[in-house]
């Protein structure tokens, strides 16, 4: 590779001004964004997983902001400074600079370091011990992916079917409900499955998402930290009424939860024995296709 005229890594005069401008803007803008925009970033902080993802998003925004400022400054500066002054000038040739090895090496090294940092940070957020990331972990997650208090988590089964969600609480007699109610401050262990096609269980404000795959129990952990009501949605196209596949989610105090679950058990007791015994997955019969 023939390298262009100049050697060395001195900042060329055309770039000196924007180099300073970039430095100043980045040093000012990045902390401002982290401090003021960070706490507003989705998915909020209604659960440990949401909080972890918000932190994650903040870090990535903080990395993206100086890069974006730098690229914008460079392009705007270049387009103004190097534009052809008039039609004739725009048809004369620029200097034949074909490349500069040091710039290339610096560029590759910088992007590589950023990528390494991002990957390391993402992996750290993924296996934090105390806070789960809220994503589906498959049917048999390895221990390092589990939150520290996984063993004391409240098990809740999520069953997707076209086009509704139902929930079973195996530690409360396997009672089945159409509303998801969770006690605040309690680690929850979702086991997500489906009895027909692939759905995706998305508790939006808790920042939990786990695909509901027929024949598979997809485990996800979360600890809600605020009493709040919201909506569960389906995030994987599952056919006609995909957009309407919602259900209500309430995070309530532990006492209210105990009262609610006792009431549900009492309400559904007469028909409880028609339900299949609690299992991680259910195979419906017959398995013909619809219509």
């Amino acid at each position, binding site marked *: 590779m023939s390298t262009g005229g100049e050697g060395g890594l001195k900042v060329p005069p055309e770039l000196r001004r924007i180099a300073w401008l970039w430095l100043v803007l980045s040093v000012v803008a990045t902390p401002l964004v982290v401090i003021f925009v960070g706490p507003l970033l989705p998915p909020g902080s209604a659960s440990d997983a949401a909080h972890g993802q918000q932190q994650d998003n903040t870090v990535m925004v903080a990395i993206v902001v100086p890069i974006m400022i730098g690229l914008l400054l460079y392009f705007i500066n270049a387009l103004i400074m190097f534009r052809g002054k008039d039609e004739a000038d725009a048809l004369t040739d620029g200097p034949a600079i074909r490349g500069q090895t040091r710039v290339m090496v610096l560029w590759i090294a910088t992007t590589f370091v950023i990528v390494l940092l991002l990957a390391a940070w993402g992996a750290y957020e993924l296996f934090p011990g105390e806070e789960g990331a809220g994503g589906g972990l498959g049917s048999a997650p390895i221990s390092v992916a589990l939150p520290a208090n996984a063993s004391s988590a409240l098990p809740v089964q999520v069953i997707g079917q076209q086009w509704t969600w139902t929930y079973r609480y195996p530690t409360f007699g396997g009672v089945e409900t159409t509303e998801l109610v969770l006690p605040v401050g309690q680690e929850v262990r979702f086991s997500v499955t489906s009895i027909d096609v692939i759905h995706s269980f998305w508790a939006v404000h808790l920042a939990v998402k786990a695909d509901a*795959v027929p024949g598979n129990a997809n485990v996800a952990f979360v600890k809600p930290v605020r009493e709040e009501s919201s909506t569960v949605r389906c995030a994987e196209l599952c056919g006609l009424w995909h957009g309407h596949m919602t259900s209500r989610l309430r995070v309530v105090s532990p006492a209210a939860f105990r009262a609610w679950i006792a009431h549900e058990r009492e309400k559904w007791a007469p028909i409880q024995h028609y339900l299949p015994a609690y299992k991680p997955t259910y195979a419906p019969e017959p398995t013909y296709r619809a219509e």
Partner: protein
Amino acid sequence: MSAAAIPAAGPVREPWWRGLGRFNVFTGIVLGIGGYLIGALVIGHVLSKGIPAQTETNQNDIEFVCGILLGIVGFLVGMGFLNYPIARLTGAAPTLREKEEKGIARYFTLCTDHKVVGIQYLWGVLFFFLVAGLNAMLIRTQLLYPTEHFWSADNYITLVGLHGTMMMMMTTSMVLGPFGNYFVPVMVGAKRMAFPRIEALSFWLLPVAGVVLLAAVGAKGFPTGWTGYANLSVQAKLGMDCYLISFALIGISMALVGFNMLVTVYTMRAPGMTWTRLPIFVWSVIATAFLQLLAAPVLIAGMSLVLLDRVVGTTFFMPFSGGSPFLYENLFWFFGHPEVYILALPGFGLVLEILPVFSRKPLWGYRLAVAGLMGVALLSFFVWQHHLFVSGINPDLRPFFMFTTELISIPTALVFLNAMGTLFRGKIRFSVPMLFALALFFNFFIGGASGVFLSDAPSDVSTHGSFFVMAHFHYTIMGGLVFAFFGGLFYWFPKMFGVHLNEKLGKLQFWLFFIFFNLTFFPLFAVGMLGQPRRVSAYSPSLQWLNDWVTAAAYMIGLSFAVFVVNVVYSCFFERRRPEANPWHSKGIEWQLPTPIPVDNFERVPVINASPYEYGTPEAPLVANLNPSHAEVVAAGG
């Protein structure tokens, strides 16, 4: 039949049945319809006898699929794709006779002139872009209201599937089809593609696939979007077969284009066209061709297996009969992720081709650009499970796929560095192609930065399957490929059609498109983060004002394309501004040739003496010596 019976130098003997029809698109349609009727009413009917799952429901997949497959065969026979093989089998001499036909009619036939195929592709691609774009308008119209207001959920989900599938199918050939076929042979100094009939076949499969896909509307639609996840696709109605067959056809077309391009560039470069003199656009075509050749067969396999599940009753993807929906997800995304780079790489190549011309500088870091394109192509095979972070796959693999995905930003960033270096100290002209090329870098940066959020496994938990993803890939595909496509179209239109597109209307289109593209898709990142899943016909009422904003801006994108249509009509039929021989003052080899380019491109095999980016080197020779002496050919290694 002995070879001696053939006149040595005469034209190929007319087969006796040629008198029955001229073998063009009309005979193709007639035989296609005939094939469908025979396949559905005779073969399919007989085959499905005694299978109650097919005959006793109101949808008989066996009849439908047999009809479509035989219809496709009928169309291709009617187009004349069997004429040459049969003529050769009966002893005719090898020939490229189809190339010599003249006039408008050749655009409706099997034509082996790569320039005709390129223009066929261009109009085909633009037509499908129009249909799929109108679908997008209809989708956005629905989303003006948080509940079903204009379309039933049924029609809406079919619109979403049609828009996604048609765009994904069409964009695979959006650059390689028109510009690849038209300019790659010219740029490497060849007289034709390596396999001209396969080139024609790869084009004619595109309209066939488009028609089969559109037929889904009449067959109760399909509910799966462009991803076609099993086992939803197995339980879906008849329209699903249309999706499966058309996507598989596009897979075949892609693989054919890929290997045709590779062979052409490898074997047909003119003397002196070394690997380092190859235009960067041709390098991007090579990288894309590798992806197409290696990824498309996986798509064909996946589509065929779903078709077998639906038609024959196998259970590859049926979870309660020993199959697995995960198998489909892996097959699909093993194709699907290289696919998105099949869409991105030609766009990179195009803008890197345009930038040196309009900055009047050599392409900065040529080898680095090649490494970048090849690096993206290679890495794209190692990232597919980032689509499955929350699907319930083995979670130990998430850090690996997160890392490989983020690694792709390194070769992608190289393309940015090439652009920045090329602009530096240049003489920049803001012609329409340059505007589109520059916009790609703005759009693709936002697309790439949002991609980092999606590649990050914890962050992906919330953004996966939401409008955030949708905004992300529209930024990369529409903001990248479609902008590059229009840049290339404005750049090469004078060469392809001998007409200069109007600059003012072009700039109007560009600014409308650029501004409203960003106003449409940037808010969608927020819509996704706030909890709106993709492909929903109903959403949270609290998000209505954002959705209405997006819809209004999307209509303005539609307006920008209307400006383009007006521009083409106005420039071609009213203004008719004949371009100079080299309107952009480019050093590219294609501008050394007369307009229109003669049938055989070059009268004699040219000798390549320089790279096409020798700006600022006045003593550099012309790229091609179009009339080399014998000694010069020998000296160049010919």
